[in-house]
């Protein structure tokens, strides 16, 4: 019975200053959105690094006329390494076909190729690593004396650079976002304190009469705590409501970037959304309860 009355008082508090409640919830939503943007960004950065890492490979060109069996042996020994994700052997005919396909619009190159007459390509191996940091190991494995002398050339792009710049950018955006979230949280705390202060002011007569007729301090305070929790809950729901369609369209857009992989943002939220929003609600509720307590300690003489 008492609980119902307390809940009633809490909702009255909210209803009696609707505008302040709207402002409060908006600020809380802003804070939560910032936190979720940060999270999304993190997921995107991870996906980006992964997709770059997946593309990392070394192409090893063997000398003309190298025995195919030797190439196959080299391939097998590379695949045996734990750092190697895959090693694909490309025969001269296939290399030629690929080359032609890539340059099908370029008459000059194709005619130069016809000029040469015979297939200028030799065997090659495309070796991909599991991780960018595995490269030195793979390169040193290629020094293996049993086939090193047949290798004409090793070709690889410096992806470390790309990964480095991705993480530099995300790092600074992460910082900026964290600072922004902290600022928003601070403003939220001030706004919640003010909202509770105003509610106490609006209710000052009721509160003084409550005290006079023997209401316990808990009975008087609980509606304000509950008010803080309700704000947190509503803000969390609104944030989730905004986040879902945004994530869906972000995923659709970002997927074209990461094709054939997907950006993983939506999957991440579908898998962890309950935990993420649950945790965000809990933290927000605790912060807001503390803010309300602060306001009551300052403005409610019970």
């Amino acid at each position, binding site marked *: *019975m*008492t609980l119902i*009355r307390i809940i009633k008082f809490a909702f009255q508090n909210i209803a009696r200053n609707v505008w302040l409640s709207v402002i409060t919830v908006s600020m809380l939503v802003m804070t939560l959105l910032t936190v979720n943007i940060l999270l999304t960004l993190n997921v995107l950065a991870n996906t980006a690094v992964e997709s770059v890492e997946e593309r990392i490979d070394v192409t090893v060109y063997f000398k003309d006329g190298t025995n195919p069996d030797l190439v196959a042996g080299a391939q097998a020994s590379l695949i045996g390494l734990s750092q190697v994700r895959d090693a694909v052997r490309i025969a001269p005919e296939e290399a030629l076909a690929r080359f032609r396909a890539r340059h099908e619009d370029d008459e000059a190159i194709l005619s130069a190729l016809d000029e040469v007459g015979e297939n200028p390509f030799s065997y090659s191996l495309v070796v991909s690593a599991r991780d960018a940091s595995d490269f030195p190991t793979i390169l040193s494995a290629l020094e293996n004396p049993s086939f090193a002398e047949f290798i004409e050339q090793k070709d690889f792009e410096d992806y470390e650079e790309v990964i480095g710049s991705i993480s530099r950018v995300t790092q600074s955006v992460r910082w900026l976002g964290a600072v922004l979230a902290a600022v928003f949280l601070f403003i939220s705390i001030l706004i919640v304190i003010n909202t509770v202060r105003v509610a106490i002011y609006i209710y000052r*007569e*009721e509160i*003084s*009469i*409550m*005290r*006079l*007729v*023997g*209401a*316990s*301090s808990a*009975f008087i305070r609980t509606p304000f705590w509950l008010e803080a929790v309700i704000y947190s809950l509503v803000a969390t729901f609104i944030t989730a409501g905004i986040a879902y369609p945004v994530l869906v369209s972000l995923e659709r857009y970002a997927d074209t970037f990461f094709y054939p992989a997907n950006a993983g943002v939506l999957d991440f939220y579908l898998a962890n959304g309950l935990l993420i929003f649950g945790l965000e609600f809990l933290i927000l509720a605790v912060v807001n309860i503390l803010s309300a307590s602060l306001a009551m300690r300052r403005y409610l003489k*019970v």
Partner: protein
Amino acid sequence: MIKLKNVHKIYPPDIVGVRGINLHVEPGEFISIVGQSGTGKSTLAKLLFAEERPSKGQIVIGGWDISNIRPREVPLLRRQIGVVFQDFKLLQKKTVFENTAFALEVAGVRPSRIREIVPQVLRIVGLDDKLHRYPLQLSGGERQRAAIARSLVHRPKILVADEPTGNLDAINAREIIDLLKKINSFGTTVVLVTHNREIVNGLRQRVVMLSNGEVASDVEHGRYKLA
């Protein structure tokens, strides 16, 4: 029922509220506290329902020493002492019924019990035909009756009334005093703070006169003489 031993109340920094008050009030007594403005009558009343704490001395209510009562125990005391003020302290947005019920609601009383008690006390104060009026739709005397009804819902052993007739004309004032007498006749100890001489003289009950925060006189069947 009420025992004060050498009670002092000094408001910071050094404003004297009351000093050296000794007072015993028996159960069922009707006692009037009189004196000029600023002599500590309200301070004395506030000490009784723990709105203020004594700076010195001891206050015992019904065997309970409330001199250093803890904040969390104050609600229990308030449910045993009814309080009534000059300005009624009714909520304008609530009806007579709701104002009266409010005191029970905040104490966690069941709705069915509230529907039982509220009409009873409103009948005692003679407002049973105005349950659903708002305070603004009532006369001053009726407002004070509503306030008294609210103070009675917990069946208090003590009723403290601080200038309950201060805002009322003579006729309404007399009716309120009659109501207090009626409540007293049910066995409730009544502490009436007033500076209305006519009322006190009409009561022919115990009168304690305060002067500069001290008890100047304390007489049975007293009359209020100008000190």
